[in-house]
């Protein structure tokens, strides 16, 4: 980060920037206590799912007019928008695509990645029969964060979990039910492991035991480091299969200015600096986080890897979870129901009804 600030400090000699790294696990608690105590920093990197909560605490400043927001990926811009007001700007993005073993796919006669739901299922089943193939595809059978894989299926089928205005929950719908039933079929048909060992995705992918999974860009480095030299050529990625559309989860982090900042103007100047394409590319080269600005993707450093190109395509069709203050709590209820659907054959319709009533009890926090 200090590297990126050199240019900024040169242009603004009167401003000193102090950078405090916080581990991601404890960042949320740190911020909420800092907000409560009135000691929040001027500028901070905020997880995309925390935006609504912080806005409901009156903690973030709306983005001023002079900062352009038209070049961000639509999903990323959505993640900084709470009730039609934009707070802060997107900083980096990530989205999920399907990883698969090219070599194993070829052995079972698949040369073209599938494009629809049925195709993905058939491919996973075919790969399962391949050499060493134990399971077809690694999917999370519920538990923490499984909503991140299931929500895109809802979207892909034209469903959603909140109304357009974001004031009511819409879990129980025919579209969502169909999507959840599709997810369930991977477990009932024995294509996915209903009780996978934790943290074994990389090894199982490299060994071929589980030749497919759905995840984000950080997994590229992870599987390549386990797979060793040449492994990069053995696997490929493709965008999420379509039902009505191809939809994926959009995550990442945003940067925002806290209310009560003593250095308001300098803070927004800093954000303006950080949201220049060249700075975003420099950050990408340093740590591999994908730029939130579309124009940054034209840079050679990003565009040269064809796998990133797949992420780029997917980013055009990736959505952030609803920006409501209680989302984390509602998502935990959804996770628990997904688990019962995958492990205990709970009827998807019943599961969604249950989430719907839980979510209504929790409210949107508005």
């Amino acid at each position: 980060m200090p590297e990126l600030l050199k240019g900024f400090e040169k242009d603004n000699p009167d401003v000193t920037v102090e950078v405090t790294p916080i581990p991601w696990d404890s960042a949320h608690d740190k911020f909420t206590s800092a907000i409560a105590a009135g000691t929040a920093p001027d500028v901070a990197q905020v997880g995309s799912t925390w935006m609504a909560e912080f806005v409901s605490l009156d903690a973030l400043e709306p983005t001023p007019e002079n900062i352009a927001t038209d070049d961000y990926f639509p999903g990323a811009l959505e993640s900084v928008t709470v009730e039609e007001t934009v707070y802060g700007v997107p900083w980096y993005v990530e989205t999920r695509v399907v990883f698969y073993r090219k070599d194993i796919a070829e052995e079972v006669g698949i040369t073209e990645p599938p494009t629809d739901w049925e195709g993905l299922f058939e491919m996973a089943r075919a790969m399962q029969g391949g050499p060493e193939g134990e399971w077809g595809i690694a999917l999370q059978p519920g538990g923490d964060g499984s909503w991140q894989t299931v929500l895109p299926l809802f979207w892909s089928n034209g469903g959603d979990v909140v109304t357009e205005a974001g004031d009511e929950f819409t879990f129980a719908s025919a579209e969502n039910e169909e999507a959840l039933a599709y997810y369930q079929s991977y477990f009932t048909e024995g294509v996915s492991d209903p009780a996978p060992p934790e943290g074994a995705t990389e090894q199982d992918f490299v060994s071929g035991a589980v030749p497919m999974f759905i995840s984000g860009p950080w997994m590229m480095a992870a599987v390549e480091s386990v797979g060793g030299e040449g492994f990069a050529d053995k696997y490929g990625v493709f965008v999420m299969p379509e039902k009505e559309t191809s939809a994926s989860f959009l995550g990442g982090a945003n940067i925002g200015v806290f209310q009560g900042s003593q250095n308001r103007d300098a803070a927004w100047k800093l954000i303006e600096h950080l949201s220049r394409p060249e700075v975003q590319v420099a950050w990408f080269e340093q740590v591999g986080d994908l730029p939130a600005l579309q124009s940054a993707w034209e840079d050679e450093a990003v565009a040269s890897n064809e796998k990133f190109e797949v992420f780029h395509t997917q980013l055009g069709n990736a959505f952030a979870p609803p920006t409501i203050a209680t989302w984390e709590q509602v998502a935990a209820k959804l996770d628990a129901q997904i688990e019962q659907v995958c492990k205990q054959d709970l009827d998807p319709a019943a599961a969604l009804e249950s989430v719907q009533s839980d979510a209504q009890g929790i409210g949107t926090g508005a």
Partner: protein
Amino acid sequence: MTTPSASATASPSPPGPGPGSSSAPARRRGHRAAAEARAGLLLSLPFVLLFAVFIAWPVLQSMFMSFTDMRISDIRSPFAVDFVGLDNYIAAFEDPVFRRSAVNTGVFVLIGVPLTITAGLAAALALDRGVTRLRGVFRVGFYTPVVTSIVAVAVVWRFLLRPDNGLVNTVLGWVGIDGPNWLGDERTALLSLIVMAVWRNFGTSMVIFLAGLQAVDQQLHEAAALDGASAWQRFLNVTLPSIRPTMLFVMVTTSIGYLQFFEEPFVMTQGGPLHATISASMYTYNQFGFGNYGVAGAMAYLTFIVIGIVTLAQFRLMREK
């Protein structure tokens, strides 16, 4: 709460001597006692202050919180929240996941506490009499898990319990048993955590039992042996009664520890699968995380009440015997 300076000067003149003690030495003793009392007060003030600010006040505040609908958004104006009476307590009882977490905690206590105490006592007895030369090695060995970071422990145990190539299932495989996915199967997950917790905690009770055993009067043992008592009879009739206070202490502290069961599920299973390992304190923690301070406060007080009852019952039980 008085400020330090105020209470230090609160008694400028020491209390006069009581009636019937007008002699000079007595008065001087009175002076000295008052001065000592003042010094004592002054010395204990930092503790009293810290206790009041960091323990007593938050405890009262959280009790207040448990009767209100306080949420994270009320954090800057804690007294602007609405009083809701026992609603949060009722909500906790009606929450199926909280009920499940209470059952899990109960199972954990009922199996874990006796196992931990038995293992601790057995190890202490063995070390008290066992081979002299290796005693130190074993003491350190049994105590090491207690002082090891839970995160380091978790990594190793997860590795041991892995379904495909973990050590436990590999060994079971040698004798022809197809081991389960210990942490991933809801029938074995809680059990696995109990075993791990017992392994991690019995060292503490062992150390305390060792100290208790060393205080047992050896003459009683010798006398009982002369009367022809077997080793088992001597253990039942001499050792156990002699260490009863130690036993009570270990029982109470171990039970409290297990009732607050948190770290193991937090790092190993996150409460899953299917809520099989979620504990009352972990669920309370989650509610805090979601910003539901009122409900979380009520849950914390429910745990506190249960701990109080269990502790009282143990005191009763041990006294009557």
